[in-house]
């Protein structure tokens, strides 16, 4: 959670310094929920994170270096400079690189789960995250219904962070709570306070356990507030002050730290040590990625097909670089 926050902050500062191409999208205020997802999954599970899931990605096993490499366009990163920022993953490890089209990852996770069923693999789950805005897409509705019909072990986590870019929830959906959507599709629903790490770990953990136990798809809806702009280019001036001051506007990281202190599980100094360690890790990861080569367009093979003999013309005979 802490590492995710600090890594995000580093990307934001690199963005402000003009060192990152394209946008930076951070998950400030959503780390508790995100980390709970990554933490509840095991090796062999499937994870399809969204833009605000740096913390969950790390918890699922992504290295800080891989994250930095993608933002900085290193050819050694998983996307080799071809795709960037949050659009990264390692599909062979069950970690999916998102496409931008919101909702689109849900049926893809369903398909992976179906494939595992065909192959006789049991006890795995597939988790994917979405914002409340993403729940307005056709793919959300079709994907949830599909998972329900097939009784797939899908865990769909919705971070209702009150705004989709500038659009408040009231202009996104008109039902009382998004968790009510679960009943409409015949799946189990869970709602929780996304600012509370303990609640996140418990509820997401329970949903994942249910799916793993064969109880079918699970919809988890968390209430929280995005404590940043949509991206680093956005000052979020449209966010309602009342929401900021409500419990929904609490910083989940501070809440978690206070809880640890209250329980006497850590000393204040330990928190400082953790922060320093995380900062150092992030600095090292970024420095490493910065030293690595960026793509060379004249060595690039410009080949979009796996069936190399079917590529038309240019570049078909250049070998694909080894996967890293």
């Amino acid at each position, binding site marked *: 959670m802490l590492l995710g926050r600090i890594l995000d902050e580093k990307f934001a500062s690199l963005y402000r310094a003009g060192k*990152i*191409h*394209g*946008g930076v999208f951070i998950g400030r205020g959503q780390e508790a929920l995100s980390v709970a997802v990554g933490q509840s999954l095991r090796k062999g599970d499937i994870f399809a994170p969204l833009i605000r899931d740096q913390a969950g990605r790390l918890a699922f096993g992504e290295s800080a270096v891989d994250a930095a490499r993608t933002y900085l*366009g290193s050819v050694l990163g998983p*996307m080799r*400079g*071809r*795709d*960037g*920022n949050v*659009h990264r993953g390692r599909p062979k490890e069950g970690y999916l690189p998102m*496409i*931008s*089209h*919101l*909702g689109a990852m849900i049926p893809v996770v369903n398909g992976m789960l179906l494939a595992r069923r065909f192959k006789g693999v049991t006890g795995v789950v597939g988790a994917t995250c979405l914002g409340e*805005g*993403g729940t*307005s*897409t*056709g*793919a959300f509705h079709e994907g949830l219904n599909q998972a329900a019909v097939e009784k797939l072990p899908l865990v769909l986590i919705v971070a209702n962070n009150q705004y*989709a*870019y*500038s*659009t408040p929830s009231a*202009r*996104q*959906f008109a039902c009382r709570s998004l968790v009510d959507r679960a009943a409409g599709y015949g799946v189990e629903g869970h709602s929780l306070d996304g600012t509370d790490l303990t609640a996140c770990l418990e509820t997401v953990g329970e949903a994942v356990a249910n799916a793993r136990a064969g109880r079918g798809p699970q919809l988890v809806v968390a209430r929280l507030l995005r404590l940043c702009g949509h991206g680093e280019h956005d000052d979020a001036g*449209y966010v309602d002050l009342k929401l900021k001051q409500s419990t929904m506007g609490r910083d989940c990281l501070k809440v978690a730290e206070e809880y640890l202190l209250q329980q006497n599980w850590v000393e204040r100094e330990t928190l400082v040590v953790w922060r320093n360690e995380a900062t150092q890790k992030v600095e090292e990861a970024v420095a490493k990625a910065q030293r690595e080569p*960026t*793509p*060379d*367009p*004249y060595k*690039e093979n*410009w*080949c*979009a097909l796996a069936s190399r003999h079917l*590529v*038309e013309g*240019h570049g078909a005979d250049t070998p694909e670089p080894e996967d890293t």
Partner: protein
Amino acid sequence: MSITYLEAIRLAQQRALADDPRVFIYGQDVGAFGGAFKATKNLAQEFPGRVIDAPISEDAIVGAAIGAAIEGMRPIIEMQFADFSTVGFNQIINHAAAFHWRTQVPCPITIRLPSGGTSGSGPFHSQSMEAIYAHYPGLIVMTPATVEDAYSMLLEAVAIDDPVIFCEHKYLYYHLKADQLPTEAMPTGKARIARSGRDMTIVAYSAMVHEALAVADELAAEGTEIEVVDLRSVKPLDTDTVMASVARTGRLLCVGEAFPWGGVTAEVIARVASEGFDLLDAPPQRLNAKDTPVPYHPNLWTVHRPTARSIAVAARKLLRQ
């Protein structure tokens, strides 16, 4: 006064809203926020209830626009990025495009697509979709390259009784400026001679017009006169102007930012080859982006799409033929 391409788009919408009560704007974040690129800034305040935030539901957005158009309204739809229009593809190509042909009832909707690449925007925020939509009968596809055209063609799009795909280029939003808005405008369907010349014709549209003009400048210094034709709309495609230009120059290079397979450049070449073969002194050539998704890293992106540099190489080669 200095007006950007983006501001021209905003002002055209303001004028359309002011002139015609049937016009309304619908799209994600277009309301109080003024749109992801600020193309609708202040319009919600100025025209209460007529500039409406949509949920993230492109299929439903286009479907609702079709419904409203059938009832006599003139919706302008903003897609946040052209790339997301694929989610509304079914409604656009199967419903809006075919509606008038099936029923004789017009379907006047304008779908604005912030199109084309900018540095670092990657495979899902960079695509040029004009060829895809131009493929379908029943759609008009506009690709303005200038501030003046962005303004006048958008107004025309709203006035036209058919669905219009309005491909505005994100790179031009802030890069292009004009002193004033046009009072009289060239109608859609007519191509423009952006620069005249006698040695070769470069046909281009949208952002590529400016790359082509840069090449024409560069080669003029070497004594070669390149004629640049700006298509303005890719459907209808003004074959007459293209053919007349080729008749003057004898050489044709067609440039597009979209993917190479099929598409606008192929269409132009096919028409000139089949109807004007005898006008050509050399085989007609075309230049497009590479046949891969649009890469994220600027090193790759600048080589992936045609630029003044690669166009100049292609032009020089064609001149030697």
